């Protein structure tokens, strides 16, 4: 499930209008581009929504994707986040079988992953975990032997990493010695 190293994260600021998601997804299929994952949500400004689209492409195609997306009248701004310059998070819900007295072992696993048990049945548990896609991949792999009854992931969302350098410090540092 994990995106290979060529994955690119596009955060696309779009007008919050009906049909915008369809325009974006139609464009992807019409131009033969592949979407790895896509998440849409409101932003701080209710006129706009933000889409986080993860695509697996090489350089030239990526440039085409961005340029073609930019032509959509409802697309305001596209930012490409390099994976190393972004903080990415994703949410996973998984219902795991706990037959044969395996409940405690699954609960233990959830605890290790900082996951939360959000629903309990006689023979199954539903676990929620938020984290990096890798973190989610690992949990998914480890619960699989118990029997995954149902699983859903949201697709990742991302924001650029913040500079750790304080602007004040930087201006101090720049002063000639």
């Amino acid at each position, binding site marked *: 499930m994990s995106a290979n190293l060529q994955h690119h994260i596009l955060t696309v600021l779009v007008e919050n209008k009906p049909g915008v998601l369809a325009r974006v997804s139609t464009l992807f299929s019409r131009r033969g581009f592949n979407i790895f994952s896509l998440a849409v949500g409101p932003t701080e400004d209710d006129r706009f929504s933000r889409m986080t689209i993860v695509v697996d492409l090489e350089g*030239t195609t990526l440039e085409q994707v961005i340029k073609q997306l930019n032509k959509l*009248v409802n697309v305001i701004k596209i930012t490409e986040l390099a994976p190393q310059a972004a903080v990415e998070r994703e949410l996973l819900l998984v219902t795991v079988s706990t037959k044969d007295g395996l409940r405690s072992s699954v609960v233990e696993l959830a605890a290790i992953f900082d996951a939360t048990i959000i629903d309990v049945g006689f023979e199954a548990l539903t676990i929620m975990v938020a984290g990096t896609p890798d973190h989610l991949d690992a949990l998914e792999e480890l619960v699989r032997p118990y029997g995954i009854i149902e699983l859903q992931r949201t697709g990742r969302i991302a924001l650029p990493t913040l500079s750790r350098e304080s602007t004040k410090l930087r201006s101090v540092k720049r002063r000639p010695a």
Partner: protein
Amino acid sequence: MKLTGAQALIKSLEMEQVEVMFGLPGGAILPVYDPILDSSIRHVLVRHEQGAGHMAEGYAHATGRPGVCIVTSGPGATNIVTPLADAYMDSIPMVAITGQVATHAIGTDAFQECDTTGITMPVTKHNWLVTDVDDIPRIVREAFHVATTGRPGPVLIDVPKNISNAQMDWYWPDGVDLPGYKPTVTGHPRMIKEAALAIMAAERPIIYAGGGILKARAAEALRELAELTGIHVVTTLMARGAFPDDHPLCLGMPGMHGSYTAVMSMQRSDLLIALGSRFDDRVTGQVSSFAPDAKIIHCDIDPAELGKVRRPDVPIVGDCRLVIEALVKAVKHEIAKLPAGSPGRGDTTEWDGLLSEWRVSYPFRYQQEADGPLKPQFCIEQLRDRSPSDTIVAAGVGQHQMWASQFWRFNHPYTWINSGGLGTMGFAVPAAIGAKVGRPDKMVWAIDGDGCFQMTAQELVTASAERIPVKIAILNNAYLGMVRQWQELFYEERYSEVYLSPDLPDYVKWSEAMGCVAFRVDSPEDVGPTIDKANEIDDRPVVIDFRVDYREKVYPMVPAGGSNDSLILGPWAEMSADDRKAAGDPNAV
């Protein structure tokens, strides 16, 4: 002022200076048809909505103004999908208005409901579903803005019936507010300078002019650039007429059926100046072997075209006219820096010599024998020579289209109308009608194939009823000729489903039944006199059924996907000059 949505829609079109729209009414668009009776806008009632779409395109091609078509929901809307796709491929400004079922019925599979905005999303530049009557003037304003600015294209406004019936307070917006739509029009000065330097240094430069020249109304600027620099120009299928064919620097059409000189000049060039062209596969052939030694300057108003097929060395995003004008200035500036008495730009004498040699050795060829079968190229040459030089020519899609582009002399911009990108059979008749509506002062000839004609001929009824005197030349070879040509050359002459018959239908009777004057021509000596007769008729459409030789093929030809270097010249190439002279080739030297 209180208006219904329908009245507001028509008033908005009037505000956009629409003079004509092409359409056909039906249930969902009924409210909008009522105020048409009181409007200054002319409505042309078509016989099939596809005709309305292509008429709007032909009108836009010929006038530069957006073409407008108006149809009902469901089947009316799906019938204009082909013209929308056509206009999208060829960047034709067009505004389509479709009726839609009432908003509360949307999604219920109501009678004549279809997801028009969904279906047309990939073939329009943008589309709108109106959900509030107050939005109508704003949306119309936005629609015309989007259709006509940046890279032009078709847009669609879907208007539910209850919205057209609702009341609103009339207003007209001052402008448009589209935060996500800001086309770049002026080229980057640094790129312009780089382009000028590349032009100064090049030894084998070629200007590769595309349809963008016409869209940007840049024909004059292009001429200035070519004359200033002495650089030869190829004009793509979409740019025929953008640079005059009779100009000494014009090399004509490149591509799959282009002239040897145009194709080879690009292959051998060291600098391709692509202006409003898009490296279409019909021009480049196999991309990896296209113009292998050429540095590329690529100017287009659509940033997505730069690097889509071939990575440019000097990318310039901008309007062709503004960029070329800036380029002319920049080149003049560089020329001024040269020492006095220097010959100017880089030395291209050898190159110019080679091009002239090619032009003499490899013209387009055919041979019309006096008592032999009628040749389609001969008909086109006769049409050309017997019609005014600024005649507008609309073509269908197939062999006849290629011959029309090869053998006509396009010396004026906006005189060539064809379906280049989508290759839509049936385009010619309605496009010619739209062009004639837009330019009633000009003679308009459609050069059509027998196959194409049968797809949209019913619009001649529209032309007769509306007194739109277009002229149609059917090059009747009794075949889907272009497909036959491919089967002959690449499928071992296995002719599968391409025969049409010369007599079924009887084109003369059919045309007469549609209110046209019609002639049939079988022999070369009748061609000229019949064309003269047709050219005298100016009160109704005329159709000539030219019975032409079905064996004739379009040459030169680059096999699909093949390298341009593998261009096939055709039978004339194998003959010696003496044999050609003996066979009556006027071009034999």
